[in-house]
Structures are given as C-alpha cells and as structure tokens.
C-alpha cells in the first residue's frame, strides 16, 4: 500500500478563486492510500517544494499527488523535487486543476467537485505507480551522413569541426550532389562550383571525415547512440590508392557513348569516368555495363595506359561494417519524370528542356560549353519560354501536391542571366504565382522584371507544339488580361517539380524513420524538432525533409550537425523509463506488436520460461528501451495484455477511469 501525500496548490488566486482548495484537501484525505494532504499558495515555489520535502520525511510518503497546473508545466519540477527528497521521480502524479478546471469553470461548487474527482483519479493512479529507473546506453562517438551533397557535406564538416568522426556515404562516384550541377546560384549569382568546391575539398581533407563514394548503406541495426551499419562499397575497378587522377584512361577509353548522368543525359562520357572535373575523389570508376572489357573481355586499354597500375578489373564489392552514434539522412532530390506531361512536348522536342538541364547548358563545363543554343540544331534561340510549376502544386496524380519552392527563384535567375548575356533574346515566364520569400529574393525577382525586362505572364501553358519549321508553338492563357496567348518559341524550359531521391524509401525503412506520402522524411515535430526524425538518433538534412534552397539547406545541415554534436557529446544516454514492457508469461510471441511499433523497438527472442512449473522455450517480445518512445501502440495490439506501458499501465489507466466514473 502506498503512503500518498496530496498537495493542493492555490496558484495565487488562479486556482483558489474558483476551487475550494480546503475542500479538495479534506476530501482527498479520505481516499485510499492518502496519509497526508495540505494546500499552499504556490506549490512550485521553493517554499512549496520544501513543504513537500518535509511531508515526505514526516509521513514517509511513497507517492505524491500535486493538484496544480498542467503537468506539461510543472511535472518535471515536482519530479525533481521528489527526487531531491529521496523519492523516485516517477512516483509523482499531477492533477491538473488549473487549465482543466479552475480556469474554465466559474461556479465554485462545480469546479471544486471536478477538482476533487481529478485529484481522486491521480490518487488512484499513484496507488499503482511503481518506481521507474531511467536506463542508460552508451554513445558511439561517430556519425554517419547518408548523401554527399551540400547538405551532407555541410553537416559532416560541422560535426567534424566539433571534433567527432564522421563518415559520408555517397551513392555516386563523387560527392557534390545537385549543387555541383548548377551553374550560378540565386540571389547573388555566385558560381556554384566556386563556392561548393572548397567545401568538397575541406571535407575530403578533414582528418575526422571519411568519405565512401560509389557506396550505399545496406543494413542498419541498433538504436540511438549505438547503430551498426553495413556499407556496400561498390567495386570501382580502379584502385583509389594507386590512381593519380591523371585522366589518361578517360581520354583513351574507346567506349565514349554513354549518356552523362552529370550532364543530365545531354552529353556523353566514357565507360571509365569521373562525373565531372572537380570530382572528389578524383578517382574514376568503370561503368561495367558500358565497358568493352567487361562486356566482351577484349580491350583493356585503360589498364595499358595507366602508368600507376591502378586499374583492377577483378575488384569486388566490399562490405564495411561500422558503428555510429547518430545518423544523418541527406539524400537530396531529383526532378520528377515528365512522362505524364505530354502536352509540353518534352519527349518530342530536344528544345524543350528542364531547368536542371538548362543549368548544364549554361555551364561552361556543360555539353554546349556554356553557349546558349538549341540542342536540336545548335542555333541561338531568340525567344525562350519558361513554364513554372510543371508537376508542382498539382491537384491530380500526375504531379506533386506541394510547391517545389526553388523554381520561382531559379527561373528568375535563368531569365536574368540570359537577358544579361544575350540581350536580344526575349524571355517569357508563365507562372501561377511568383513566390519569393527569402532574403533579397523579391528584390532579385523584381530586378529580373524591371531591369532585365523579363516578360512575366500569370497563366498556365496548355500546350507546346513542335512546328515543322523547328520552332515551338506555345499556347497559354494570360489570366490578368484574360486572353488566350499563342506564341512561337525557340526553346521551352520546364520548371520541373522536385521529389525526394528514389532510394530514400529504402533508407527510411532501414532506419525505421517515417516517411510521408510524398516520400519526404517526417520530422519529429514540424515546428519544434524540424531536423530530427521521430526515430531517436536519426536526423534530417536538406531536401530529403522537404523542398528547400541552398541557404536553407545549409542552415538545416548546420542545425542537424548541432543536434548530432549534442548527442555525441554525451557519454551515456538516459532513456525514457516510460517504455513498453512485455510480461514473458503472457506473451504469445505473435509479432503483432512489432508490426505497429514505429521505432522497430520490438524484437523476439526464444527464452526458457518457467510458467508456474511448466518450463518451455517460448518466443517472447523484447522491448529495446533505448528505441521505445512510449507511444503505447503495441499495448493495444497485444490481445493478452502482455505488453504494457510503464507509467501509463493498463491498471493505472483503468484506475483513473474507475475513479472518474465513480
């Protein structure tokens, strides 16, 4: 039997004005287990807490009920107080007689009656409370960053600068990500490569950072502070230690017809290749699907020309197993496929391109060496039309329901750059809305319109039709003038919606990180914990969480790094003791609890059980306390009641129900 003390707070007049606190004290005294009850002006004050302390000593209290404000306000205060005076902090329950009572009821009698019932429920619960101990788990002081784009690089750099080891796993042969494909960046028109390359070099050179390119995460197990990850290092067919990055192999390679991924398929590359000149590491890979040696067994030119002897056709994939304390997902984005948007003639005309393709066209290292030209005939365009929101803000299932966020700005950038370099080219932008929230963003857009004379038309394009003369007929509508528009264009650029990278779903599954219907990873809280995944120890950086531009990505990358640093700075983690727990005598081992656990916290073990004299091996659910966040989904799925939630047990909640319905 508990020895319960009940402490009723006046909260000045906040409670006492509408609740007869003396009456609450008086009636609480009669409840089972209650050995002491008192009221005080401000229970949360030093003096109030001292009263609680004195009562704990005097009455040898084993449990406390504080009738006061919301537990969201002062539960932690009173738990600390209990602990200070030698009581387990989880032997405290709060009856919320302020927010849920005195503040919303005017009638004193009514409010007092309710306060008594709320106190009674809390007392009934405390009667069943058991001391809970927060567990501890160790922290491996190394972080994993999945994805080597600007988000991943920035996160890795920030973590490494704080002195912790970081590994970056990048799927492609080089880090750099989407940003390395961009020409200039808004709103300052910096050269993308100029600001990114130093960061890539920093990352590569950092003593705390290890980069696994051409590698993928294959398996994740464990939990916050103690993840074990298998990384598949795909066979490069080039020995990175020997390669000097001279590039001769790429020059001599006879297989040169593979479309360049880096150039979005607008140019070609050799079978042995680095994606771009500034690639890090500057070690080529052999595309075994394109390589003649691999396809026919004959060739071997690269091996012959490589003076370093770095070519190794026999190289195998390698699995590296490493332990991490935290994992950051920075898998980035891709543009959506346009196969459902036939009306824009993307597949019919080479002169209809996506904005990302335009980035490559305008880039000096791109397929046209930076010359703005039509990809069909190499002629200089005179009339360019940009179409916004292709697949974004889409209400049907062809595209995405969300705003891709970056298109308005990069289109302004493209328009401005074209008008600057080729003043004789007319640029028209069809838009639904122009969204420019961001520092210097609106100014930038206005410059495009006002200084550079870009023609913005509010309206949608219904059709782009390739004409026999090679031009494109753009049919649209001007909503402001309410008229149909038909115009000829030489080039059409589609501001294609972005979507999370294809592989993210698989990664989310491995991490038991949740993902929304658009495949963006879900934050632990959309406002208050935007860079954390609901899965402890997993953090989000960049577009994998939602569309964002470079400055935002970098900020978020830094924020994620701070969260990781905060985690890695701890030697041990204290776990929430209000976790689920399976009673091994009741557990059926049916696996239904694991199916609803959002954290993958439940595993099954075969245990020898002694069930009242019957000894047998049984499959029993085990909850990993470090992973369990205490939602309780498993407890309701469990038909036998084997799974219970500590701190919110079945019996405790039923006792509250009973007390309220009495």
């Amino acid at each position, binding site marked *: 039997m508990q020895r319960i003390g009940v402490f009723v707070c006046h909260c000045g007049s906040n409670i006492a004005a509408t609740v007869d606190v003396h009456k609450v004290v008086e009636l609480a005294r009669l409840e089972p287990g209650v050995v002491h009850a008192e009221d005080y002006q401000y229970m949360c004050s030093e003096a109030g807490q001292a009263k609680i302390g004195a009562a704990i000593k005097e009455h040898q209290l084993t449990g406390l009920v504080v009738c006061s404000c*919301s*537990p*969201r*306000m002062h539960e932690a205060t009173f738990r600390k107080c209990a602990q200070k005076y030698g009581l387990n902090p989880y032997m405290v329950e709060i009856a*919320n007689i*302020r*927010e*849920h*009572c005195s*503040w*919303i*009821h*005017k*009638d004193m009698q*009514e*409010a007092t*009656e*309710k306060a008594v*019932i*709320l106190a009674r*429920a809390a007392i009934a619960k405390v009667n069943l409370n058991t001391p809970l101990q927060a567990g501890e788990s160790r922290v491996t002081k190394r972080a994993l960053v999945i994805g080597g784009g600007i988000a991943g690089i920035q996160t890795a750099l920030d973590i490494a600068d704080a002195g912790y080891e970081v590994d970056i796993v990048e799927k492609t042969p080089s880090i750099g990500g989407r940003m390395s494909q961009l020409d200039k960046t808004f709103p300052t028109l910096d050269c993308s490569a100029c600001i990114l390359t130093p960061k890539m070099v920093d990352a590569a050179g950092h003593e705390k950072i290890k980069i696994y390119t051409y590698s993928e995460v294959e398996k994740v197990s464990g939990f916050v502070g103690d993840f074990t990850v298998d990384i598949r290092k795909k066979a490069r067919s080039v020995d990175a230690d020997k390669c000097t990055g001279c590039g001769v192999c790429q020059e001599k390679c006879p297989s040169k017809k593979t479309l360049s991924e880096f150039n979005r398929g607008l140019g070609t590359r050799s079978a042995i290749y680095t994606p771009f000149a500034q690639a890090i590491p500057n070690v080529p890979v052999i595309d075994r699907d394109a390589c003649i040696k691999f396809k026919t067994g004959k060739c071997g030119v690269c091996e012959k020309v490589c003076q370093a002897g770095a070519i190794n056709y026999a190289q195998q994939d390698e699995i590296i197993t490493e332990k991490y304390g935290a994992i950051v997902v920075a898998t980035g984005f891709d543009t959506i496929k346009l196969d459902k948007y036939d009306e824009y003639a993307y597949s019919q005309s080479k002169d209809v391109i996506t904005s990302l393709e335009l980035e490559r066209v305008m880039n000096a290292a791109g397929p046209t060496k930076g010359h703005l030209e039509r990809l069909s005939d190499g002629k200089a365009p005179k009339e360019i039309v940009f179409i916004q929101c292709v697949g974004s803000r889409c209400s049907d299932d062809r595209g995405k329901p969300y705003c891709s966020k970056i298109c308005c700005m990069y289109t302004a950038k493209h328009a401005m750059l074209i008008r600057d370099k080729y003043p004789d080219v007319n640029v028209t932008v069809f838009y639904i809305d122009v969204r420019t929230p961001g520092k210097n963003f609106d100014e930038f857009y206005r410059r495009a319109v006002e200084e550079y004379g870009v023609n913005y038309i509010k309206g949608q394009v219904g059709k782009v039709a390739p004409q026999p003369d090679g031009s494109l007929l753009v049919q649209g509508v001007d909503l402001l003038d309410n008229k149909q528009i038909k115009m000829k264009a030489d080039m059409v650029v589609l501001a294609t919606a972005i979507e999370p990278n294809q592989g993210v779903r698989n990664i989310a599954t491995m991490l038991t990180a*949740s993902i*929304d219907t658009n495949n963006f990873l*879900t934050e*632990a*809280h*959309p406002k208050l914990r935007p860079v954390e995944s*609901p899965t402890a120890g997993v953090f989000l950086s960049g577009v994998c969480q939602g569309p964002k531009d470079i400055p935002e990505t970098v900020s978020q990358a830094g924020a994620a790094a701070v969260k990781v640093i905060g985690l890695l700075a701890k030697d041990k983690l204290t776990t929430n003791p*209000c976790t689920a727990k399976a009673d091994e005598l009741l557990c059926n081992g049916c696996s239904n609890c694991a199916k*609803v656990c*959002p954290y993958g916290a439940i595993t099954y073990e075969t245990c020898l059980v002694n069930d009242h004299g019957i000894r047998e091996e049984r499959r029993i659910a085990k909850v990993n306390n470090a992973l369990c*966040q*205490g*939602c*309780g*989904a498993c*407890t*309701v*799925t469990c038909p036998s009641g084997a799974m219970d*939630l500590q701190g*919110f047990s*079945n019996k405790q*909640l*039923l006792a*509250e*129900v*009973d007390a*309220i*319905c*009495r």
Partner: protein
Amino acid sequence: MSVNEEFRPKIVAFCCNWCSYAGADLAGSSRLAYPADVKIIRVPCSCRVNPMFILRAFEKGADGVILCGCHPGDCHYSTGNYYARRRMTLLFSMLDFMGVENGRTRVEWVSAAEGVKFSTVMNDFVEKIRSLGENVRLGDLRCKN
C-alpha cells in the same frame, strides 16, 4: 427546467499528451469554458487507448467517452493516431451494430494550437450526451438471473 438540463453526464476524455492535452491546456489558459462534466485522462498517444478502457468507462457508469489525438499526420509518434483511428472506427461500428447510441463515443483530432476547437468539441459533445440522456444500454444487455 427540463430533465435533460438537470442531467449531469459523466464524460471521460482521453487526450494524447502532445496535441490534445496541450489543446485542453490552451483552452484553459484562454479561459474557453466547457462543462465540468468532462474529465480528462492523459495518455501518451491516442494509440494507447484500448477499447477495453472505453467499455470499462461505460461499465462503470460513464455516459460518454471521447478520444482526442493529434491530427492524422501530426502524431508525435508519427503513426499512433492512424492505428487509433482504425481501432476506434471498428469499435464504434460494433457498438452501433449492437444498438448502442453511437453518439456516446467520439474521436476528435485536436492540435496543441486548437484551444478553441477543444472547447467547442467538448461543448458539443456534452450537449449531445445530454440529449441522449443517461447511458442504460451499455449497462444492461444481459438480463440478470
């Protein structure tokens, strides 16, 4: 005064800690009144609420039971309220199937920012329960010997 106005129902409200309980707190700090008949039980998540808790409340004399959780998609534990939604839909349907007034049970999604909604929902629910009167059907399906 009519009988229904005199009738003070017993109403149990299960509120998830992260959204609805906070919503109730906000209703409180905004002084948005709702009848004292409503008593809130704090649970970590709407998915913690076992249908047994709801039936137990009726067994012990409750006239109405309402479950409040985060809006779908906003669950603190990401998926809890989706499970709660299916469970409660089926439970309520069963009660309806057995001829128990289905207005006695309800699920509402109330965010931490929706103090006004919390108060409105509770006012509406209490009014509904008052109009249904005392709960007898959930108490006497079995004839006593």
